[in-house]
């Protein structure tokens, strides 16, 4: 891991088109500005990890359970009586 020390308003360039700037340091929080092309996704790492985990779980949903879920949902929505 490359470790750099930066002060507020100082930046780091990554490659040709990503710039990370330290905007403010207050207590144990750091505000960071990120400039990157739209095609470069930028996420909070722990949030992205949650979505990855949930996608892995969601991919296990079976046809049979989905049909059962739909049966539960229909009366709740006041849909067609079956």
């Amino acid at each position, binding site marked *: 891991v490359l470790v750099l020390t930066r002060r507020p308003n100082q930046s780091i360039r990554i*490659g*040709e*088109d990503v710039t990370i700037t330290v905007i403010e340091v207050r207590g144990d929080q750091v505000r960071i500005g990120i400039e990157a*092309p*739209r*095609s*470069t*996704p930028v*996420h*909070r790492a722990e*949030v*992205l990890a*949650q*979505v*990855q*985990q*949930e*996608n*892995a*779980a*969601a*991919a*296990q*949903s*079976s*046809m049979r*359970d*989905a049909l*059962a*879920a*739909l*049966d*539960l*949902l229909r009366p*709740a*929505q006041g849909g*067609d009586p079956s």
Partner: protein
Amino acid sequence: VSRTAAAAPVTPPPAPFPARIATTRFGDLVVDESRVLRFPEGLPGFPAETEWVLVPHAADGASPFVWLQSARRADLAFLLMPPALAFPDYAPPLPPDVDGAAASGASLWVVVTVPAGDPRAMTANLLGPIVLEEGARRGRQVVLGDDRYTTRHPVFPSGAAVAGAAGA
């Protein structure tokens, strides 16, 4: 000038369309290129899966659910639901580039997780909604930076689902 297409990963060329996929859920599916939805970034956890098709949940079109089936991986599909079905107030702020797409007729979906054998505990991922631009044959899963939402909102709040919910 911004160069966005940097070093692309080297992958074997995929089979040409129309492709026949022996899906685990829907049997044999012949996928024509005109039906393929492209997710340029893949989905979180599935970065290589960039080609998907929509499969209706019920043949008669009576189901609000739709399956997002990988056009390449037979066993990979996600059950999608219109969020209004269970979360009428759900209107997350979308990133500006997605918002533009939404204005031009894109649709918003949420991925549903149905635990095996326990449909009452089904949850919806409101943190990572799916935006589909069917006209442009494009889609993406948006990761929201909004801590009102989690990946596991119970669809049936009074059910056993609460035990599995990750926060409020």
